[in-house]
């Protein structure tokens, strides 16, 4: 083989190796980028599954009219280390549970549940919804002044949400 042929061969080899390294690197990069997302999904899936079970426990306790226990179990749902983007789901759950306590004529428990968990929520829209429901629960108990205070708070948050 002449020297020119060796040169061409080595150039092709180097190019091939570089290309394969580049492709490999890109693949590793892509995998490492995907892995944390996958982990987060797995974690969220686990939390949701636990919350799903917990929700059913709460419903059973309510049916058994063990309302204090039901509230304690309900609180656990909101203490599971949820990612911030799950807030709408949690608001739905909190309002659903408080509504169900009220259907069982337990507005005090509903109010306590809402009061205990409002601090978990960072979005002012969520807070507005919760304060309104707190006002509704207070009104159900005939505590009109207290209800008005909760509605004032909700109104204030809605008009000028904190930055």
């Amino acid at each position, binding site marked *: 083989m002449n020297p020119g042929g060796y040169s061409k061969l080595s150039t092709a080899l180097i190019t091939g190796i570089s290309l394969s390294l580049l492709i490999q690197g890109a693949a590793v990069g892509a995998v490492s980028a995907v892995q944390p997302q996958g982990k987060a999904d797995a974690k969220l899936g686990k939390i949701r*599954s636990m919350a799903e079970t917990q929700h059913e426990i709460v419903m059973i306790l309510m049916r058994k009219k063990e309302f204090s226990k039901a509230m304690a179990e309900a609180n656990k749902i909101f203490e599971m280390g949820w990612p911030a983007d799950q807030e709408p789901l949690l608001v739905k*759950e909190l309002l659903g549970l408080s509504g169900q306590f009220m259907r069982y004529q337990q507005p005090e428990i509903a109010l306590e549940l809402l009061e205990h968990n409002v601090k978990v929520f960072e979005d002012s829209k969520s807070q507005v919804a919760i304060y309104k429901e707190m006002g509704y629960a207070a009104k159900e108990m005939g505590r009109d002044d207290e209800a008005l205070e909760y509605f004032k708070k*909700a109104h204030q948050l809605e008009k000028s949400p904190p930055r």
Partner: protein
Amino acid sequence: MNCQQYCDDLTAYMDGELAPSRSRELTSHLGQCRSCREELRALQASAEIVEPHINDLEPAPEMWNNLHSRIAVMPAPAAFGGFFGTWLSSRWLKAAVGAAAAVVLAVGMWGTMNYLSYQREVRQYMSDYIRERELEEEALRVREVNAPAEGTRVGTPQAMEPANPFGVIRTVSFDNPFKTEGQ
């Protein structure tokens, strides 16, 4: 008229302050009523004791002199001087006080109106939400009556349980595999 009412007028009668007709009426009553006559006599006796001493209660002229001399040696109150003194004692002061009062009144009225309007707004906000929630509950009841949840009694809270938002619990009904024949 009774004796008590006549007696109430006795002092005015003695001082000649009653109307002539009333005075005549009282004189006529005194002619007939012994107890009222005695009351009048007692009042006259008291007046005789007090009247000669009334002049003695006048302050002595020396006392006035003494008071005047004490006031004269007292330091005069500090007066406002310069620009502020002139300004404060002028009509500008009156105008400024009037303007300030008007501003305070306007601010007070504005604050009150604002407060009342805010209260009205919040009450409306509250009643809107309560109405909305009541309608929501009513709709839930209607839906539940029309399509009752399996295994629940209509109208019970259990029948209106909120759906589990975290997923679907899969309930698969199947026959009991341990069931013996004939049971």
